[in-house]
């Protein structure tokens, strides 16, 4: 009986079974950032614990960093204090800090892969739920809480239960104007925000095979929005080509050894899964969320569903969503006037995300609608640098977008980039929770970067295929 990648990686990293029945699981890569680590370090100091494997932890700052200017000290005292704390902790425990000064900083889920830190067959954890992103490389990667960050620092391990594995197959070719973001929004729409609880998601099928690493990261990133703590794609030639030559990738003879290990971790052809679901790529349309959970989404041209279309237990939440958003059933979300457009985040803040938007901006020559505040925020300083070298900064600013410094920015409300009042934001990020983007009454519509650009230009939710005259 074959094994899945999840089972192989888990077994390879299981140190021993604990009395509770859980496993002590070794962590191959530990990433930390400024928000969820300071209390963990404080607990270490309280208990006089050491960090035995500091070379397996890497630190960056992303959530609180301002994206207008990164000059120190930050204007915001609290943000400054959090960064000083992180620097001090890294220094004290000998942890490699990816420093803004050296141009290494960025969102934790963007910089890890960029540096070649994330590799197939690894366990990866971070005090951040979107750690599932790293599963794109065929790693078992998941978010943890601060007390667990303490455990990993002190022991390089966690107490974990084994998950079941659901294989999600998408086959076929996506239609023009449909992106990785639409695929994952579609999957979450089908399986629900808690459909993945207790599962690891294995994304497979010809659609994912054809995806670039950045597209795979977009999908795995949002596994957690479907309730699955981790999601992964089996490593293949695309994975290896991406990793080759990166700072922390194996070199020389070690490379061949690595590829052999990575290949051996792939799911067996006869692997057994707790569940298998299949979708057709052709069925997927550009998606937009209309509610307050990432599953409350629809094809851009469709009318919003009536609460009565849902099981009775869900109706209260559907009604709450309509009330919060100020939307009504039976009307399309298309045409809703937006105030803000945000392209960035660990879901869609990578080079290829911006490249695709630039392509359409250049071809159409279109500009941001007056009255729309449009932000372009690279996911890392490296992404930003590459964008400048490619002239993207100019394309964006000429089109009326603000071109910012790297960080989480308007994905959440921990830095100066925030919605105001009930503003409606077309966003390439991953969460449309109430108040997520900084105003307790602010409203978020999740969509692909190209759809965000189309909304920015139209001043309202639009079908990017019409705005940019896609040929099909």
């Amino acid at each position: 009986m074959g094994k899945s990648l999840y089972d192989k990686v888990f077994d390879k990293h299981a140190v021993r079974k604990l009395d509770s029945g859980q496993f002590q699981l070794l962590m191959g890569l530990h990433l930390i950032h400024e928000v969820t680590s300071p209390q963990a370090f404080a607990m270490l100091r309280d208990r006089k614990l050491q960090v035995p494997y500091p070379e397996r932890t890497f630190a960056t700052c992303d959530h609180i960093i301002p994206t207008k200017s990164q000059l120190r000290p930050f204007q915001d005292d609290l943000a400054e204090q959090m960064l000083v704390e992180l620097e001090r902790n890294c220094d004290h425990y000998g942890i490699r800090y990816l420093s803004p000064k050296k141009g290494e900083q960025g969102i934790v889920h963007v910089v890890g892969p960029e540096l070649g830190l994330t590799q197939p067959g690894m366990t990866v954890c971070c005090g951040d739920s979107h750690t599932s992103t790293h599963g794109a490389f065929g790693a078992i990667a998941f978010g943890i809480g601060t007390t667990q960050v303490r455990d990993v620092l002190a022991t390089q391990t966690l107490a974990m239960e084994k998950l079941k594995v659901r294989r999600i197959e998408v086959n076929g070719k996506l239609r023009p104007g449909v992106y990785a973001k639409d695929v994952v929004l579609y999957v979450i729409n089908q399986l629900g925000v808690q459909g993945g609880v207790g599962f690891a998601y294995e994304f497979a099928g010809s659609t994912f095979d054809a995806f670039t690493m950045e597209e795979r990261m977009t999908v795995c990133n949002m596994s957690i929005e479907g309730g699955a703590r981790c999601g992964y794609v089996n490593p293949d030639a695309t994975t290896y080509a991406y990793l080759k030559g990166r700072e922390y990738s194996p070199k020389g003879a070690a490379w061949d050894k690595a590829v052999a290990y990575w290949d051996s971790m792939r799911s067996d052809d006869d692997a057994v899964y707790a569940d298998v679901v299949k979708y057709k790529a052709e069925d997927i349309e550009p998606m937009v969320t209309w509610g307050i959970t990432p599953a409350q989404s629809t094809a851009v041209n469709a009318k919003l569903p009536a609460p009565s279309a849902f099981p009775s237990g869900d109706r209260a939440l559907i009604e709450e969503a309509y009330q919060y958003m100020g939307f009504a059933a039976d009307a399309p979300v298309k045409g809703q006037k937006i105030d803000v457009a945000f392209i960035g985040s660990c879901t869609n803040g990578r080079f290829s995300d911006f490249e695709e938007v630039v392509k359409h901006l250049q071809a159409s020559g279109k500009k941001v609608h007056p009255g729309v505040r449009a932000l372009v925020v690279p996911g890392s300083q490296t992404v930003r640098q590459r964008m400048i070298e490619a002239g993207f900064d100019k394309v964006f600013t000429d089109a009326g977008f603000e071109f910012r410094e790297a960080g989480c920015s308007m994905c959440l409300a921990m830095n100066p980039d925030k919605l105001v009042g009930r503003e409606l934001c077309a966003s390439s990020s991953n969460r449309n929770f109430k108040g997520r983007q900084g105003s307790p009454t602010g409203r978020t519509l999740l969509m692909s970067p190209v759809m965000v650009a189309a909304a920015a230009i139209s001043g309202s939710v639009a079908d990017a295929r019409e705005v940019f005259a896609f040929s099909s």
Partner: protein
Amino acid sequence: MQDFKRTLITGKAISVDGNDIDTDRIIPARFLRCVTFDDLGSHSFEDDRKQLREAGKTHPFDDASRQKAKVLLVDRNFGCGSSREHAPQALMRWNAGITAVVGESFAEIFFGNCVALGMPCVTASRDDVQALKRAIAADPNTELTVDLVHGEASAGNVRVKVSMPEGARKQLTTGRWDSSAELLEGKDAVASTAKGLPYFAHWH
């Protein structure tokens, strides 16, 4: 010596209705700008509370008669979204401090965070959760008891079955939920597992 065993938890109760309540709602992100958890308690559900106040309604966490509650009753997929441990840390620090949560289901990371803090999250069927809610609704002084040994929760004359994954239940009932000590004991085994991984020393 402090007793870490979590077997029987009793206290006044409070209920927050709604499915898929995410951790951004339990503690909005702006309060995460801090280096200690100390001041989080009073900000639990802050934005939800404010919105209800403005609509002339009262959030349970603002209900004067519920301020002594120690057990929280919720619906489905409670604690989804962000991994922020600030969410259970805030609940633990709200007034008397929440010490147990009963609901239909919980998001995984939230559940794990709670266990790591010695706070059980037990599940019950939808009907049973509703029955408990009715039992505490009439009188805020009604005590709700969560019995982790027998897998039961009771309030007034309602008694229902509750469950939680066996590993976590054992950790809590035996007082071994503070995982660091146990994980540290595995030190040598950890080193040998690490040796078996080709990449662990950066491929050297």
